[in-house]
């Protein structure tokens, strides 16, 4: 029994090699040849925009709290229209381990992974990306989601103006 297994074990690898010798090679001649990464590949991060073109990120600090290596920092600020946004937002890609935990934490789907992985360089400072570097002009993997159309604080729609809301009450009304 075990002899048969040994013979099989010796020949099978040769067979596998032989088969693959006949196939078209799968090796990509990187860097001459570029590879399209899988959809869920976790590469460099980006900050996306909502369908109305506004910055999605509300600087809630959840990504920076989730990040195991503490490479995200930011400061929130309030816009004239009551929109909370990042006054500045920085990711230090020299530290990032591309775990994607930040994207899982993000409640507005602002921070998302891209397929980009070519981040090597000689100057570490070039790997410290600021908000302008991170911000893209599309919605990434989730083009339709708009946080301010889900949560009722009267930014995208007037107060009480979302489909899931009733118009603001009049607290001085005494009708039963």
């Amino acid at each position, binding site marked *: 029994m075990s002899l048969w297994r040994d013979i099989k074990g010796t020949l099978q690898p040769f067979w596998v090699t032989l088969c693959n010798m006949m196939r078209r090679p799968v090796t990509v001649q990187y860097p001459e040849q570029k590879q399209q990464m899988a959809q869920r590949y976790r590469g460099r991060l980006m900050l996306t925009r909502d369908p109305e073109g506004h910055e999605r990120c509300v600087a809630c600090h959840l990504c920076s709290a989730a990040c195991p290596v503490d490479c995200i920092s930011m400061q929130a600020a309030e816009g004239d229209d009551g929109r909370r946004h990042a006054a500045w937002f920085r990711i230090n890609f020299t530290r990032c381990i591309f775990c994607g935990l930040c994207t899982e934490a993000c409640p507005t789907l602002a921070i998302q992974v891209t397929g980009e992985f070519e981040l090597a360089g000689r100057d570490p400072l070039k790997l410290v990306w600021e*908000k302008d570097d991170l911000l893209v002009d599309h919605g990434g993997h989730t083009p339709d989601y708009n946080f301010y159309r889900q949560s009722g604080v009267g930014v995208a729609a007037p107060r009480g103006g979302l489909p899931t809301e009733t118009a603001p009450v009049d607290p001085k009304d005494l009708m039963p």
Partner: protein
Amino acid sequence: MPTLTIDNLSVTIPDGSTIFEAAAQLGIVVPHFCYHHALGAVGACRMCAVTVVEGKMPGLKMSCMTPAEEGMVVETDTAQAMEFREHVGEWLMTNHPHDCPVCDEGGECQLQEMTISSGHGVRNYRGNKRTYQNQDLGPFIAQEMNRCIQCYRCARTYQDYCGGRDFGPMGSRQRVFFGRFTDGMLESDFSGNIVDVCPTGVLTDKTFRFKTRLWDLQQAPSICPHCSLGCATVPGGRYREIQRVVSGVNVQTNGHFICDRGRFGSSYVNHPKRPRQARVDGTNVPVAQALNRLRDKIAGVIAEHGPGAVAFVGSGRASLEANWLLKQWARSLKCPAPVFELHPRRGRAIRQAVGPLSSHLASLRQVRKSDLVLVIGADPLNEAPMLALALRQAVREGGRIVVLDPRPVDLPCVFEHHPLTQEQILCLLAGRCETGLLNNLLSELMTARRPVLVGGSDLLGGVGLQLLGHLTESCDNDDRYCLIHPLLPRVNSFGGGLLEDAPQEDLLERLENGRIKALVCLESDPGSEHPEAGRMQLALSRLDYLAVFDCLPTHATRRADLLLPTATTVEGDGVYINNEGRMQAFSAALQPGIPIAAVTAGQHPPREFMPETPGSQPQPAWQMLQDLLGERHSVTALRRAMEQSEPRLEGMSRLQPGDEGIKVAPQDPEPVEESTVEIWSQDGDLRLLPVQSCYGSEVASSLSQTVTPRLVTPRLMVHPQEAQQRHLQEGEDVTLKTAHGLFRLRLFCDERMATRRAIVPCLPGTPLEIFVPGGLSLPCDIEGGAS
């Protein structure tokens, strides 16, 4: 003391406690919203359901409303209780806007915590959400009513605990709203507390809006530096900027709340003009070099003119450690001991509080529990706001408050006010004037069970406090002391007084007659603290050498020949002793440095590394003084050495920041200087009383930009009778004539104040800064029209 079983653990608790409190003692937190330690239970939210398995009334019960009974068996995690709590969590969330990412409560939200602990996760309700319009509640509080769960904590805090009248619940059924009748700044001086108690993000700190999440905040237990009560606070900041202060918990002093001056008046730490560089003769140098220079310079002056030519000034702003080391330094040089209070009359008052009164000092807790409080010569809301809140609690428990003060005193409670002038009060205490009122009060004090006398040191001075001391002693009986709660000028005035050996000659005279060649000021500013501020500034400008340790920009730091930047309360460790002799430790929440936001104008922080943090030179004063003395002890070792040299500080080395603090030992009774009653000449019929105002009178809040909306404008206040006699109208601009000069001020009338008195607030940074509180009233006159 019933013993009961909760979740198979047995616990014994005081009579009258509830199941909720018993569980809390075991470390079991039953989910809750409307219960708050300081406010008690109202049973409004139904979140705290537990199952009573054995007891008089078994079944599902609200733990915060059900008294604990002997032999009861309670389970918090029965299927019945958990299902009930999950439903309650779900109902409370039906209207919630789900906007946590943009909510400032995120990170410290009780609604998040309790909803998760209730087990509710998926929303089943398909109806629409109720919404509200928000109100503008002023510069301190932001409101987002859509997040409200109607727990009534804010209303209970604002109206019941703090006595505010302009905020509360309105409306009926689904429309219940918490706010003001119309938009506008909240009137109460304790408005910030509704931020701390609101379990959701409805009420948040507007000055802290969108700044930092709790998990990024650098915090440490600290002591409020704004007045002598020494309330427990927790300042927090990030990126080298102080961003907010919340109340700490100390049941002996402030309890769970603080006043708005303590909460919103801390931005002086970020002040752009703060001294941040050691400076010698106009040139910036490293701290070590400045210290060497100071040592050499003082040695030089002593060699030339003798040790009497160097004077040291400590202060009620500096920590006990720094003041003590200053004293050691003076002693090692054989120079006269430091002065710890530049205002001689205030100094005498502090000496009374530290010495003869020390066996009768009442804590704020005792004020809250008192049944009769006599407030003499004090205006709590302006001098020590949390005292006003303590007085309100006394009234809520059935106590009575009687106030003798010339000012139009306002308190958030019912009280009896006798608008007597300063000298009338002193005469009354000395038994020299019409004594009918005093006799009535005395007989009430004799029969009261927990009487407390509050004495304002600014109005009463040393003599007044001494007389108050005699009064308390005469009202003592076998069962209890009649206690006294003196208000002192500054947060560590008591500490300075305790280190003082013997009263000293007034510094101004020593400066003016040229005996002093070099002056060392530790976090004190003679030019604004001495009653003769103008003369003092002149004397300082003629002084040979002025060395200043300070964290705030003052007259002294501008004039200094040698400047050493010190750390503020939130940037260093130390101990303050409050007005009732309680030593309390504070610790550093931040490292000193220019806030990143100020360095980069709100943009991205710099991308390049710098070898040194900008503006990080300031150090706690005690560290620099140790360097001067050639020592480097840890703060604990230093405190141990202090205990040994000052037996009254026993226990100091055991202090932990955030604890209740330890009272200093009372002074052994010893004969004290007998002083005569201050009766001063009464020429002219109108006299001027410069007083403290809540915001802007003490230097830290005057430099805090956040409280600007609450500052009073320079003004003159008189009784309507005085205005009428002079044919003046309220609201017109009048000229105040005093020995310090002429002032154009707007006239205000208040019929609650004493007649024949004019009142001005002391406001550093305005023309009125020449007036310093704590003195006797001054002759003055008022004229209408253009001067």
